[in-house]
């Protein structure tokens, strides 16, 4: 059932911001430029983390760069994101995080107190997640070059023996679960930039997803098919990737999507769709229908998972397409993000 994805070629003459937005242009860049030049079977899976078999164990390896502006926002900061973002890429690959490497790209002129505060935030987040920073690197670049501070983290983990995940395991009839309300992080950061004169009682959802993954593995076992943390590009992009890679249809129910009123309101005002807004502490999971109820109950028992929901279902047709049905029977396609009107947020 898996469709061979058409080979993309990258012909754009210049790299623009949209190539980093996580949508179609990013996909073109990755699959049309990076993938052909670096080709190998592990990379070709384009998973959140690479899995390397080793003496009967499976190591998971992932890396992520953090370029958020502003550095601090309600509910978090770049130091915290740099830990949680990378841990979450390991977690959704079914791996227990073992350790992190962190590289700091610092702009000359950054107050040392800011660097100290972000390193403290990073240390706190690592401690909360029960891992340590094993090594790192520091570079200082000219003033005006790096929005103060960029952080790159690399994570290593051990894949849980029970985890057999991948788009090829997804079947029609499977249910789609999410751990909580969508869009909090993206809208929080957008408002924190102060360019919109909008205020909302909203904080970023940045958090480690490891407790949710543990709950899902316990409750669903082999019925857990696929996981992804819908960061840049949001739930819409993650599910479009699933539909394409698995060659299935994804059908969402609009009423079932958990979205806070503050996020809905901001999205209505700004003409955004919460499905495309970034999250930093949510997890999408596809589970077998026979364990869906138990898996959802397990997610809701995790502190912070009270608003977890079943938001849709996997179907056969139309293959490769994500659609959402409205309460009154209307229907629309949720395509991949084309252009990103939002500034950098993760």
């Amino acid at each position, binding site marked *: 059932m898996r469709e061979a994805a058409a080979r993309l070629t990258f012909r754009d003459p210049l790299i*623009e911001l949209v190539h980093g937005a996580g949508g179609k242009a990013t996909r073109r860049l990755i699959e049309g430029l990076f993938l052909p030049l670096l080709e190998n079977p592990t990379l070709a899976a384009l998973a959140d983390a690479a899995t390397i078999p080793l003496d009967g164990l499976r190591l998971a390896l992932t890396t992520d760069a953090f370029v958020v502006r502003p550095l601090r926002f309600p509910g978090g900061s770049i130091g915290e994101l740099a830990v949680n973002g990378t841990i979450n890429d390991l977690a959704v690959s079914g791996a227990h995080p073992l350790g992190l490497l962190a590289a700091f790209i610092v702009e000359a002129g950054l107050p040392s107190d800011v660097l100290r505060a972000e390193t403290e935030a990073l240390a706190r987040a690592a401690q909360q997640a029960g891992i340590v920073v094993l090594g790192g690197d520091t570079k200082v670049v000219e003033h005006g070059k790096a929005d103060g501070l960029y952080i790159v983290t690399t994570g290593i983990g051990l894949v849980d023996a029970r985890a057999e995940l991948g788009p090829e395991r997804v079947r029609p009839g499977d249910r789609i679960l999410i751990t909580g309300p969508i869009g909090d992080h993206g809208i929080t950061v957008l408002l924190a930039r102060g360019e919109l004169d909008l205020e909302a009682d909203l904080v970023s959802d940045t958090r480690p997803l490891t407790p949710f993954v543990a709950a899902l593995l316990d409750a669903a076992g082999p019925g857990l098919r696929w996981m992804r943390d819908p960061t840049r590009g949001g739930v819409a992009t993650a599910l479009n990737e699933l539909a394409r890679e698995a060659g299935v249809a994804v059908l969402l129910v609009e009423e079932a999507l958990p979205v806070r009123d503050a996020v809905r309101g901001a999205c209505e005002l700004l003409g955004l769709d919460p499905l495309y807004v970034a999250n930093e502490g949510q997890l999408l999971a596809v589970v077998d229908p026979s364990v869906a109820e138990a898996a959802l109950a397990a997610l809701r028992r995790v502190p912070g998972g009270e608003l977890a929901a079943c938001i849709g279902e996997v179907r056969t047709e139309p293959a490769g397409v994500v659609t959402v*049905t409205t309460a*009154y029977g209307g229907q*629309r*396609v949720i395509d991949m993000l084309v252009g990103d009107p939002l500034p950098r947020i993760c």
Partner: protein
Amino acid sequence: MRYVDELRDPRLIRSVAAEIARLADPDRHYRIMEVCGGHTHAIYRHGLTELLPPNIELVHGPGCPVCVLPMGRIDDGLAIADQPGVIFTAFGDMMRVPGRNGTPLEHQARGADVRMVYSPLDALKLAQANPEKHVVFFAIGFETTAPSTALTLQRAKALGVRNFSVFCNHVLIVPAIRAILDSPDMRLDGFIGPGHVSTVIGCRPYLFVARDYGKPLVVSGFEPLDILQSILMILRQLAEGRAEVENQYRRVVPWDGNPAALRAMAAVFELRPYFEWRGLGFISQSALKIAPAYAEWDAEARFAVPGIRVTDPKAAQCGEVLKGVLKPPQCKLFGRECTPEHPIGALMVSSEGACAAYYHYVHRLATAGRSDRCARQQPV
């Protein structure tokens, strides 16, 4: 969420849809134009066409400010953006609209200082924060956005901010509706009238549509229930042989509009003798220019604007789509050469553009060749 959920109430929506189906004469084909791109977007986003009987056809109108701007004006604006010392600001909608030598975003990637703003006042603030630069605001839009440009210019003058100017491309809705009505290939039965524009100009300017052309026009809000109710009001007029201007969007639109906004526009702008519209050609007295009292803040007066005229790519049928003569997928380039990623015409870029709305919400379903039945079942 208040003021939104009530207007998306499934029970009410189904009952209005049923009333529409009851009232529609099965022997008649109805062509109703939604003038405004915001309505086009809402119709596709909420899947409203699926709720209408097949003999009610919604025709997309020209009310998308980005779409009606001819490519030459975009090139003119980008010629200003490429000048040294200029910070060029525009709404997000404009950033991916192609000129002859690329979009504002591509000019930005090549080094032009192009920035997205959410309000012209933000552009003015940028000018105050960067006194060594000259900040230009690329003003587009119908009467919806013209008052905010006018207020910004009044504030710039009052504060004496001299490193700020506006490249004015504001256009007027009434001449566009008249051009549509005068177009020989249009056979329309009625209009879903603009909502946001009417908050400024009110409902009176549309009276000629009913009086001179005998067509009903209902000023409409943007939620699913608003649009369906407006269609029902048009059908009732047609069934009763009436042609009137009615206001469905009374919770927002006063019959006489917003006098303060109209005063600000009158103080700052004057009519251009004529202006070129994409698809509709030159229309007399259809656009605004900055009045002489504000010439110091008029980018067209400050910069040598090349005044480029560019004909649209021959194969692209943006004009026909803008006038409602063709549906988006009937254009030869739709979904092939022209996609949201590589748009040839602005209708494929703006969220209010009929082509983008159709492409995002409908096209992929149509091309996936699926059966409607399976996807309409409720999954959980």
